[in-house]
């Protein structure tokens, strides 16, 4: 169970070239190809608060700046804050004691009282927000530059109709080497800061910043007192609230809790979803989950003899057919490097002639070092369809397969154990991780109802499987 104990003994080669355990692979039923987290397109599906489980459609989450309306995070340790209530004793003689609420962190004991935020009279509280102190200035700047840019744009639009634009090359001819700078300037998004031709009457006014000669000096206290680290915020605390960046603990301010998201995954080639979670954040189910382990034979390592450089050892693999259809698997050797190159060349030509940017993501170069070779069984192994009832039936052990007893050493329902031998390369050092691979050919029956014609279609598929059972052991004592 490679995916339960996290070690990747068996990895499959995804269409994009990554090697991944079957548990994280997807199978696009439209393209009939393996897809993994690297080569699918990730999309934000829904936003939710991990504390109160409130979930919002994206548009609304956007308005709320991805933050929960009711929960707050501790600005000190980022744990969620809880609402605490106190009853204030009545000293002034009025009848009912009033309830007061404040926020407290059960983890680090920080409370809103620490920073002088007044208690609220309602539990949901209208907790004060810290506004950006420069908002007014910044809004005026924003409006100002927007208008300037619009002017420049309309002018440029006019120009492009009247005069042919000079290319950058003409600069080069004129100025020789130093033209590089001219080119750079021409291409720079040079700010419309010059603003000479702008009609000032419509321009929103701004107050440009005025530079000052005097700068506040370092307070004398720095030379005389040891800094109290319990009162000075860390960078993480500062950066958690960029606009505020409080430097002292007593100016921290609680922020609404940041949302989490659920993601859906889409095949880049056919744009169908390969994974789409249910909307409800409490649910761990999926509307669509085209996981590879429902669609292709799974390979597990059952057991193997100790591995030694240059010596063959037997290995037994368990093959499992998860589908509702009988399949037959056949092992073949991995293509050699030359064969891969030829195939890649052919594919490249094909892609270029067909559609250029169908799959455009660049594939990172992979560095797998094969350190062993398998002596693969030559006969095909038939795997019956999965039958949940048979799982619990210990009596039916009869089957009518004409298995080679040297290859198929065990069988039960949709599973079969296959034995063959592997030989780690003779030039590897003891303690080297043995990695070998093979191609697995299998038949896949596509039952997707939307396909025409409506009968299930049988396709021959191939996947490359890489196994790393373990390390070679030391020199043979004999």
């Amino acid at each position: 169970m490679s995916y339960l104990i996290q070690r990747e003994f068996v990895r499959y080669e995804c269409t994009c070239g990554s090697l991944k355990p079957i548990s994280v692979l997807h199978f696009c039923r439209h393209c009939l190809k393996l897809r993994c987290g690297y080569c699918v397109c990730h999309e934000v599906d829904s936003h939710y608060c991990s504390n109160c489980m409130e979930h919002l459609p994206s548009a609304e989450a956007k308005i709320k700046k991805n933050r929960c309306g009711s929960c707050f995070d501790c600005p000190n340790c980022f744990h969620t804050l809880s609402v605490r209530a106190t009853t204030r004793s009545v000293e002034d003689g009025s009848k009912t004691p009033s309830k007061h609420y404040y926020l407290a962190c059960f983890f680090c004991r920080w409370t809103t009282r620490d920073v002088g935020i007044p208690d609220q009279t309602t539990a949901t509280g209208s907790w004060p927000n810290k506004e950006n102190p420069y908002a007014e200035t910044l809004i005026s700047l924003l409006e100002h530059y927007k208008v300037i840019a619009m002017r420049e744009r309309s002018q440029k639009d006019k120009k492009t109709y009247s005069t042919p634009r000079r290319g950058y090359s003409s600069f080069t001819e004129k100025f020789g080497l130093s033209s590089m700078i001219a080119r750079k300037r021409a291409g720079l998004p040079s700010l419309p800061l010059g603003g000479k031709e702008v009609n000032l009457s419509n321009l929103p006014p701004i107050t440009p910043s005025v530079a000052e000669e005097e700068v506040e000096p370092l307070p004398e206290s720095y030379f005389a007192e040891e800094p109290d680290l319990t009162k000075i915020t860390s960078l993480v605390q500062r950066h958690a609230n960029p606009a505020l960046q409080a430097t002292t603990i007593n100016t921290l301010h609680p922020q609404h809790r940041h949302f989490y998201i659920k993601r859906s995954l889409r095949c880049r080639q056919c744009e169908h979803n390969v994974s789409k979670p249910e909307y409800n954040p409490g649910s761990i189910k999926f509307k669509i989950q085209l996981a590879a382990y429902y669609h292709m034979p799974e390979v597990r390592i059952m057991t193997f003899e100790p591995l030694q450089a240059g010596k063959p050892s037997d290995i037994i693999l368990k093959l499992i057919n998860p589908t509702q259809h009988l399949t037959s698997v056949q092992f073949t050797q991995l293509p050699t490097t030359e064969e891969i190159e030829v195939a890649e060349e052919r594919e490249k030509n094909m892609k270029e002639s067909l559609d250029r940017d169908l799959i455009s993501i660049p594939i990172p170069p992979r560095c797998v070092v094969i350190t062993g070779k398998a002596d693969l069984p030559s006969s095909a192994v038939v795997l019956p369809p999965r039958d949940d009832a048979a799982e619990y039936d210990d009596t039916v052990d009869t089957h009518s397969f004409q298995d080679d007893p040297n290859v198929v050493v065990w069988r039960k329902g949709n599973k079969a154990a296959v034995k063959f031998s592997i030989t780690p390369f003779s030039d590897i050092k003891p303690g080297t991780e043995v990695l070998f691979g093979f191609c697995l050919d299998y038949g896949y029956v596509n039952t997707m109802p939307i396909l025409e014609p409506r009968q299930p279609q049988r396709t021959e598929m191939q996947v490359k499987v890489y196994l790393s059972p373990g390390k070679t052991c030391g020199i043979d004592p004999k």
Partner: protein
Amino acid sequence: MSIYEGLSADKLAVVLDLGARYTKFGFIGEFAPRCIIPSEIKCPSSGKIRYIYSYTDENDLYSLLVEFVHMLFFKHVLVTPKDRHVVIVESLLCPTLFRDTLAKVLYRHFEVASILFVPSHLVALCTLGVKTALVIDVGYEEVQIIPVYEGVPILKAWQAQPLAAKAIEARLRNNFINAYNNMKNAAGDCGDTDTFAEDVSELPDSVIEDIKVRGCFVTTMERSEMISKSEPVKEPPPLKYRIKGDKLILIPGICRETAFEVLFERDNDTNSIQDLVLKSILECGIDTRKQLAENLFLVGGTVMAPGFKSRFMREVKALLHSPEYCDRLPLNTVKLHNPPAKDNYTCWLGGAIFGATDMLQMRSLSREKYLSLNTVPDWSNLAHNELVISKLPT
């Protein structure tokens, strides 16, 4: 013609300032980034933390960026990157390999609709509403100075030196290890070794940074001169700092006071930060110099250290009146701008303002264009080369 024309309102463009140490990421038209996070990822296979800028080659950078940008979108701003417009705030001195790979990752892996590259020094001015300023970015790797005059960066006057957070932290680490070993030896002589049993030579970067941020300050010019001449000054008290939960280490006051000195020292060469400022001004036209000196603009996280700005101004003023410069640069006043933002995201903010204008549609490089050219065109990736060229002696 609407301001928002051409951009569907539900696909608000994002603004990215991917710094050597911290990345600022958020939406156009907003006045603070949604997040400021370390520019690093946890390597999925080895579990080790890796800085994005620690890449070994293009492929390595490509995979680091895929991982990192994915996290930015799906953990921090929570929007789908596909078909989104992106504004990248970058230094004019950004290595071509870095910008090209970032573009490739965004266009090809994340299929963004377009990218607008904006030079950080230039757009920072959008936060001030002025057209002329000498922009001094003190970040992590380098201090980078580029004057902007009437909205045009004066590229030939650029200055850059590795005098920023990285150098400060290295200085702090060194000074502290030396001081610590001295104390240890002294203590060893009188048999008290327990207090110094900790191995401090391998303190992680994050601890050194934390000591720098919470425990260090930029001292005054007067004290700095006295310290460098070994004149007696009253040392600030040491700082008790807790590591690994329960171990206390003592950070001498002198270490806390002198870590930032590395930026201002001018003993060996004249590459202190104040020298770079004046050199940059000198490289500009004579009629622009006064205006530039009266429009200094400090950006980057390092300038947020207590005492940094006042020390910086003192040093620049003092150097201006020194015999070295007083004839060549007969200026009397230097003035400093105060941005309406925290200094570590002013450049990002400039990008967020600039990107909210029609410039986004006018100057972006669309995905279609990129795919047909298969590169970020000339005019945007010459930045590096030409700057080197402009520095060549004539």
